[in-house]
C-alpha cells in the first residue's frame, strides 16, 4: 500500500512538473533588442576556405524527381540545381551568366540564331564528357511531340537546336524572343545514358530520374531515404573545381516549425526561415540570419467581373484605405517593402516612377463618394441600395496572407466597407478562383516572379479565359505591350516599354499591391561562403565551406 501511494505521488509530481516546465520553462530571451537589418549579410568569412565537412539543409518539401525537364516543385529544383549544370545561370543580381557555356549566347542580328561555345572538359558524374550533343539532346526533348513534361509551352519560339561541333551549339528561333535568355539555364542531361529511352517514357524513367540521376553539377547523388533525408557528395571532377564541402544532406521535416526546432538543436545548418519565426531564430547564438528581397510580391486581387470593383476610383480607394506600411512594419516584422506595381525592385525592368496610393482613409472616402458610394444607416457604404460588402479569400496554408484578410477586414471596416475574410484549402482555393469559375470577390495571394518580366501570362486579356488573369483584367495597351515586349531583344528598350505597363497597372489598381517581402536564410555560423540569391535556394553551394 505504501508503495502504491508513493507511486501515485510520483506520477502526480511528474505530471505537475511537466506542466510547470512547459508553462514557465521558456522565458523569451531579449528578443526585443535584437537588431534586424533588411540586407544584413552573413558574417564575413573568418579565414580561407577549407575543404571537408557535410552540411545539413533543412527543408519541409520533399523532392519528387531529379530531372528539370519534368519537375514542377521547388524542392526538386533545389536538388537538381546541385546535381546538374546548365549552359547558363542567373546570378544574384538576376543577370544571366555563362556556366557550361564559355560566354553568353552570341545572338545573330535578326535575333533568331543563338550560339553557345561550351567549355571543354566538363564531366558528368560518371566521367563522360558533356558535349554539344548532350545539349542538343536535352533541348530536343522539349521540342519532341512525345514530351510529357510541363515546359513545352516555354519553347514554342524555338525551332531547332543543333550541334555545330562538339563544343558549339546553335539554337534557331522562329521569331525573336527576349525571354529565351532565361531558358538557356536548363539542366543538361547525359545523352549517353538517356539517348535510347523513348521520349514518351522519359518522365517515368525512374532508373535515372529518381534512383540515379547523373549530371555535371557540383554534387553527385548518393542516397535518398524517402521522408527522411537525401544525401549528395562532392563531384570531384566538377568543372569549376571540387566543391569545398564533402557532401550536402537534405533533411526533410514536416513543416517550418519542426525545422526551426531542428535548427535550434543544431540538427540542421540551413533553412529558409519564415518571417513569423524570425524572433525565435534571432535568439539562436549559433545561427546567422541572412535576408534579401524576394523576387515576389503579395497582393489583393479584385475580381473585375464583380461590379463592385469595376470603377478604378473604388480600387484606388481600397488601396488608400489599407495601411500597407503598418502591415509591413508589424505583421511582417518590418521585413518587407510596400509594393506599388507588379514588378520587383530587383528586376532590370523595375519602374519606380508609378502612381502610389498610400494610406489615406479620407482620400479613400472621397474617391468612393465620387464613385457614388455613401454611408448608409448602419455606417456601411451604399450605392443604389447595394451595400459595399464582399468576401476576401485566402488559402489556409499561409498564415500571413490569412492574417492579411483579417487585417483588411478591419481597415476597410473603418471606412464603412464590410469584408468577410474566408480561407480555403489550397486546391479548393485554386479551383474556385481559376477559370472557368472566377468564383470570388477578392483574393490575397502572391506572385513569385519569373526571371523574365514579361507581363502577358498574368495581365494579357487572352489569359482571362483559360490562364492566370483570373481577375479578368482587360486593357488594350497592356495587351499590346504584352504582345510585343518579348520581341525586343534590347533590354533597355524593353524596360522602357514594360515601365509603361507597370505605370498603367499601378494607376488602374486591378490589384492592391501589398509588399515585396524579404526572404531569410538561417545558417549555422560555421557555414561560410554563402551567397543569398533572391530566387535560387541552393545557389553556388560549391563555394560554401565549413569553418569547423
Amino acid at each position: 500500500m505504501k508503495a502504491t501511494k508513493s507511486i501515485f505521488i510520483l506520477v502526480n509530481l511528474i505530471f505537475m512538473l511537466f506542466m510547470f516546465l512547459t508553462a514557465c520553462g521558456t522565458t523569451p530571451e531579449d528578443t526585443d533588442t535584437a537588431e534586424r537589418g533588411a540586407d544584413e549579410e552573413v558574417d564575413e568569412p573568418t579565414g580561407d576556405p577549407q575543404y571537408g565537412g557535410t552540411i545539413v539543409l533543412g527543408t519541409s518539401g520533399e523532392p519528387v524527381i531529379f530531372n528539370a525537364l519534368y519537375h514542377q516543385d521547388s524542392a526538386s529544383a533545389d536538388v537538381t540545381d546541385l546535381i546538374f549544370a546548365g549552359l547558363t545561370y542567373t546570378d544574384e543580381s538576376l543577370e544571366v551568366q555563362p556556366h557550361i557555356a564559355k560566354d553568353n549566347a552570341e545572338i545573330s542580328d535578326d535575333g533568331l540564331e543563338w550560339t553557345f561555345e561550351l567549355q571543354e572538359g566538363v564531366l558528368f558524374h560518371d566521367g563522360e564528357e558533356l558535349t554539344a550533343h548532350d545539349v542538343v539532346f536535352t533541348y530536343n526533348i522539349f521540342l519532341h511531340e512525345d514530351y510529357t513534361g510541363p515546359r513545352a509551352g516555354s519553347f514554342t519560339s524555338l525551332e531547332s537546336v543543333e550541334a555545330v561541333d562538339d563544343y558549339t551549339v546553335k539554337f534557331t528561333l522562329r521569331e525573336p524572343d527576349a525571354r529565351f535568355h532565361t531558358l538557356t539555364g536548363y539542366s543538361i542531361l547525359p545523352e549517353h545514358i538517356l539517348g535510347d529511352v523513348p521520349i514518351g517514357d522519359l518522365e517515368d524513367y525512374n532508373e535515372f530520374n529518381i534512383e540515379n540521376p547523373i549530371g555535371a553539377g557540383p554534387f553527385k547523388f548518393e542516397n535518398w531515404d524517402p521522408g527522411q533525408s537525401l544525401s549528395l557528395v562532392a563531384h570531384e571532377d566538377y568543372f569549376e573545381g571540387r566543391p569545398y564541402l564533402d557532401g550536402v544532406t537534405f533533411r526533410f521535416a514536416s513543416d517550418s516549425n519542426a525545422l526551426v526546432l531542428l535548427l535550434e538543436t543544431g540538427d540542421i545548418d540551413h533553412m529558409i526561415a519564415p518571417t513569423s519565426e524570425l524572433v525565435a531564430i534571432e535568439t539562436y547564438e549559433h545561427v546567422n540570419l541572412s535576408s534579401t528581397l524576394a523576387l515576389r510580391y503579395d497582393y489583393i486581387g479584385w475580381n473585375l467581373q464583380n461590379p463592385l470593383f469595376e470603377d478604378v476610383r473604388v480600387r484606388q480607394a481600397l488601396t488608400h484605405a489599407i495601411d500597407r506600411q503598418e502591415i509591413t512594419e508589424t505583421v511582417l516584422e518590418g521585413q518587407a517593402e510596400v509594393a506599388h506595381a507588379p514588378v520587383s525592385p530587383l528586376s532590370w525592368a523595375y519602374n519606380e516612377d508609378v502612381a502610389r496610393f498610400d494610406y489615406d482613409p479620407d482620400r479613400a472616402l472621397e474617391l468612393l463618394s465620387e464613385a457614388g458610394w455613401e454611408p448608409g444607416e448602419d455606417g456601411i457604404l451604399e450605392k443604389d441600395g447595394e451595400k459595399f460588402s464582399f468576401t476576401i479569400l485566402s488559402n489556409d496554408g499561409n498564415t500571413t496572407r490569412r492574417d492579411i484578410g483579417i487585417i483588411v477586414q478591419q481597415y476597410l471596416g473603418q471606412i464603412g466597407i464590410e469584408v468577410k475574410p474566408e480561407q480555403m484549402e489550397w486546391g479548393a482555393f485554386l479551383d474556385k478562383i481559376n477559370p472557368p469559375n472566377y468564383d470570388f470577390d477578392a483574393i490575397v495571394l502572391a506572385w513569385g516572379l519569373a526571371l523574365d518580366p514579361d507581363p502577358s501570362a498574368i495581365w494579357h486579356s487572352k489569359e482571362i479565359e483559360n490562364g492566370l488573369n483570373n481577375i479578368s483584367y482587360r486593357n488594350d495597351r497592356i495587351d499590346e505591350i504584352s504582345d510585343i515586349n518579348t520581341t525586343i531583344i534590347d533590354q533597355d528598350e524593353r524596360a522602357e516599354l514594360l515601365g509603361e505597363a507597370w505605370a498603367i497597372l499601378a494607376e488602374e489598381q486591378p490589384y492592391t499591391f501589398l509588399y515585396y517581402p524579404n526572404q531569410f536564410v538561417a545558417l549555422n555560423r560555421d557555414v561560410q561562403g554563402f551567397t543569398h540569391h533572391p530566387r535560387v535556394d541552393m545557389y553556388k553551394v560549391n563555394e560554401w565551406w565549413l569553418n569547423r
Partner: protein
Amino acid sequence: MGKPENNVIQQQSDQTLGKRRSLLSIIVAKFMQNKLAVFGLFTLAIIITACVLAPWIAPHDPNFQNLRNRLAPPGPEFWLGTDHLGRDLFSRLLHGGQVSLTVGFVAMLGAVSIGTTIGAIAGFFGGRVDAFLMRLVDVIISFPNIFLLITLVAVLEPSMEILILVFALLSWTGTSRLVRGEFLTLKNREFVLAARTIGMSNTRIIFGQILPSAMGPVIVAATLAVGGFILAESTLSFLGLGIQPPRASWGNMLTYSQSVTIFRTAVWYPTFPGLMILITVLCFNFIGDGLRDALDPRVVEK
C-alpha cells in the same frame, strides 16, 4: 381473509409512501456521490455560462486588432494578453469557447440523433434491415475516420457548420451500435412484449417504450462525445482544417503553440486555450463517468 388483506394494503401504502423516491432523484443522488462528476458539472457550468455571456462580459471586441500591440503579455488592460494581431485574448477565449462548445454540442446532437434512429431501426426490426444498416455502419467505421474527415473538410469549406455536419455524419456509428445493442435486449424485455400484446404500434413501441430505456448509455456516450468533438476540432485546426479565422475557437487558438516564436515570446497565448480544452474535456469526461454510474439500469431497477 378479507380483513387482514385490507389491513395489509394499508400498511403497504404507508410503507411505500414513506420511502418515496422518484427516478430522477435516485439518479441525481447517485450522480452527486461522484465527487469528480460534481466538480466537472460545476466547472463546466461556469465555463458554459461565461462563454454564453461572452458578448456581454468580454472586455473587448474579440476581433479588434491593434497591430502595434501584438503579443502583449497579460496585464490590467488585456487580462490574458493579446494575440499575434493584437486582439484581446481573454475576449477571444470566451468567444472561442462559444464556437468550440457549439461545435461539440451540435455535432453531438446530430451524431446522437442519426445514430439513435439508425440503431433503433436496426435493432428493432432486425433481419435484412438490420443487416443492411450494420453493413453501412461497417463501411463508415472501416473508413479511416480521420482521413475522411481531412478529405471532407478540405473539400468543403471548413466553416463551423460544415465541421459540425462532417463530425455528425462520421460519428454516429458508435451510438447506433450502442442503441442497436440496447434495442436487441430491450425489445425482448417483457414490458415491450406487453406493449405489443396490447396492439401498440411499432413507432410507439420504439419511441415510447424502448428508446427512453435505451437512453442511459446514449446520454453517457453523448457527454463523452462533446469532449471528443472539441478535441477533434483542435486536431483539425492543427492540420489547418479547423474553424477558420477571424472566428476564434479554442482549437485554432491552440495551434499557435506550434510556432516556436510564439512559444518563446508569448507562451501564455496558446496555454490558455489549451487549458480550456483540457479542463472542458476533462469535465465532460468526469460528468460522463458520473452519469455512467448514475444511469446504470441496475441502479434504477434494484
